């Protein structure tokens, strides 16, 4: 081969560094678990208070300009069977046996609201290659920017709750999901589902306050009458109601790294369709693995250097003519 050693060094040093730096800006640290934002806001949903009226669903449709989801051929009004690109929020029903007693696991029933949990460390954000999904630095709401989205749907694969939905029937599709009514938060309002919940099943507030409220409810004595705030955790408007048994668990406090939507219920959460998640978020697991392999691109650079050396040595010293 007609290359001198100097040529080789010039070429390999220049070309190698150039190509490798094109792929290099991975952050250098292994991944710490994400902490809750101090100003983060969220929703506390209490299934024992929910009466299944679906006012939150109607309000969500109206204030997010969503079309009705007609799930049966002759339906004349909105009747979604699950979350979809047309439905950000749904009230589902758990039923067992005779279904007689509300919020009881055996021979009972329970309502359960499903919508975006607004994770502390969202898998969808870690997965999104083009930062179309981001976490609002103040409210912590997980929001979507269609102008960045490439429609790869990795967020759907990543989300442990299957929240992001895709417009399969559109030529120019978008990802659709609850954004904690960020457009309403921006003008000082709060999420429509909480504003229109008549019973105080969904209340809006700072996540720290919501956690305190959830703990208060868990410490209430069953059978006594206690005040439950309506619409907002800091609301003066309260409703007095009979305390019914709770599962002693705040879903979302730690699950999957924690969420800004917290839930209370009388029936175990796995029965209500919420996954049992480890405390480490999958985003953290994935990023730790990636950052270990690509920490400062040191390993790839070293490997590339080694490859240059071997390939160069072997191409110049080969026995073949």
């Amino acid at each position: 081969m007609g290359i001198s050693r100097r040529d080789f060094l010039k070429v390999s040093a220049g070309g190698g560094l150039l190509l490798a730096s094109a792929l290099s800006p991975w952050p250098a640290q292994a991944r710490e678990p994400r902490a809750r934002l101090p100003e983060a806001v969220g929703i506390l949903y209490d299934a024992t208070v929910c009466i299944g009226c679906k006012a939150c669903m109607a309000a969500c449709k109206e204030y997010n300009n969503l079309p009705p989801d007609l799930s049966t051929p002759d339906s004349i009004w909105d009747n979604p069977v699950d979350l979809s690109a047309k439905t950000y929020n749904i009230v589902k029903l758990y039923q067992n046996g005779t279904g007689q007693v509300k919020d009881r696991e055996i021979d009972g029933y329970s309502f359960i609201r499903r919508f975006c949990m607004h994770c502390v460390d969202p898998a969808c954000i870690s997965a999104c290659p083009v930062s179309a999904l981001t976490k609002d630095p103040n409210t912590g709401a997980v929001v979507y920017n269609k102008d960045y989205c490439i429609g790869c749907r990795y967020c759907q694969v990543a989300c442990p709750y299957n929240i992001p939905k895709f417009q399969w029937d559109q030529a120019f599709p978008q990802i659709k999901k609850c954004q904690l009514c960020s457009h309403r938060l921006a003008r000082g309002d709060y999420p429509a589902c909480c504003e229109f919940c008549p019973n105080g099943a969904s209340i809006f507030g700072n996540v720290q306050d919501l956690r305190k409220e959830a703990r208060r409810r868990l410490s209430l004595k069953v059978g006594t009458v206690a005040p439950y705030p309506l619409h907002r955790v800091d609301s003066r408007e309260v409703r007095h109601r009979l305390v019914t048994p709770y599962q002693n668990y705040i879903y979302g406090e730690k699950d999957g790294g924690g969420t800004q939507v917290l839930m209370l219920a009388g029936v175990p959460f796995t029965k209500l369709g919420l996954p049992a998640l480890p405390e480490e978020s999958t985003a953290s697991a994935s990023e730790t693995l990636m950052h270990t392999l690509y920490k400062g691109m040191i390993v790839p650079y070293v490997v590339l250097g080694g490859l240059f050396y071997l390939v160069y040595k072997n191409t110049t010293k080969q026995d073949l003519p």
Partner: protein
Amino acid sequence: MSEISEPVGGRIITKPFLVLAEIALVAGILVIYRYFFGLGAVTNLSDGYPWGIWITYDVLVGTALGCGGYAMALLVYVFNRWEYHPLMRSAVLTSVFGYTLAGIAIFLDIGRYWNGYRLFLPWSVNFNSVLVEVALCIAAYVMVLWIELAPTVLEGSAPPRSKEIRQRLERWLPVIVAVGILLPTMHQSSLGTLMIIAGHKLSPLWQTGLLPLLFLLSAITMGYAVTIFESIVSSLAFKRPFETPLIAGIGVIMAWIIGAYLVLRFGDLAVRGQLGLIFQDNLQSVMFILENLCFLAALLLMVNPATRTQIRWLFVGAIAMLLAGSLYRFNAFLIGYNPGPGWRYFPALPEIIITLGIVSVELMAYLYFVKKYPVLPKVEHS
């Protein structure tokens, strides 16, 4: 390079070529339909199964089948086994088409393709995303592969400046080859890392921190298997002598890697205490067993000198390995993936036809190139 390759020659438009062209044409019409009426109109994808065979077959299996060039470059340039160099060109050729068409398949699959350029804007890209690593690496590698193929094309065509360009390219050869080995090492492992974030939705039979390593090892082995497969098929198709001792030697290397892979695979399941899931008698356990039986079959056929040196068994062994790696990828992305009750996925007919169309284009391009350009080693006529 040093030894002589020659074009196979013969007519380009043959009967098989026309059949492939027809499939590609139908697929092309369906692709147009997809761009007008959305992904739901041609696929069975859903919010539960957002990724289907276009990702699993076209991208995952497609690029793994395209690992021939990578696996052979590793052997020849890094481990200095120049006796295998005659197989290099055809291996690079299949890699070029495997990867290029996987790249095209991604643009069929992504919903908002007009924003695709954003993947290449450093200030808007999310470097925490595994998909970014995969996308950038594959895009870079497609370019490297075309550069690696360039000497073949330049040798085949004879414009006045082609020799000069070739010589300049050859000066850069160590750089191109080294980068061409680094990039697939990075993205073939990252393709496995993609599923880490799916967490509990992927069965513990496949969900493990070893996903990147298992994907990498199986991709390299599939690269060798595809080289053996292709050597035998082109010998049969173009009535050329078999390259038996050469490809049997590759079989030995395959056996070592499959052995290491299986030790890691089952060791990992044992350490995580998930071996019990193998015997659950559901679809996932059946597919797991099938997947690993294919690995085992490939291992046994390649380890045994008696089977390895017979073209017939070498061929079966290569196919077993290709099946094993493909099943592993289908299982880790579709069969083992369970988004929750009520979701199901089986590809729609148009979805399958589009994939077949992509395979057809790949085969047509391969046929065209080996007939027109010096890809396959020159046959010594006795």
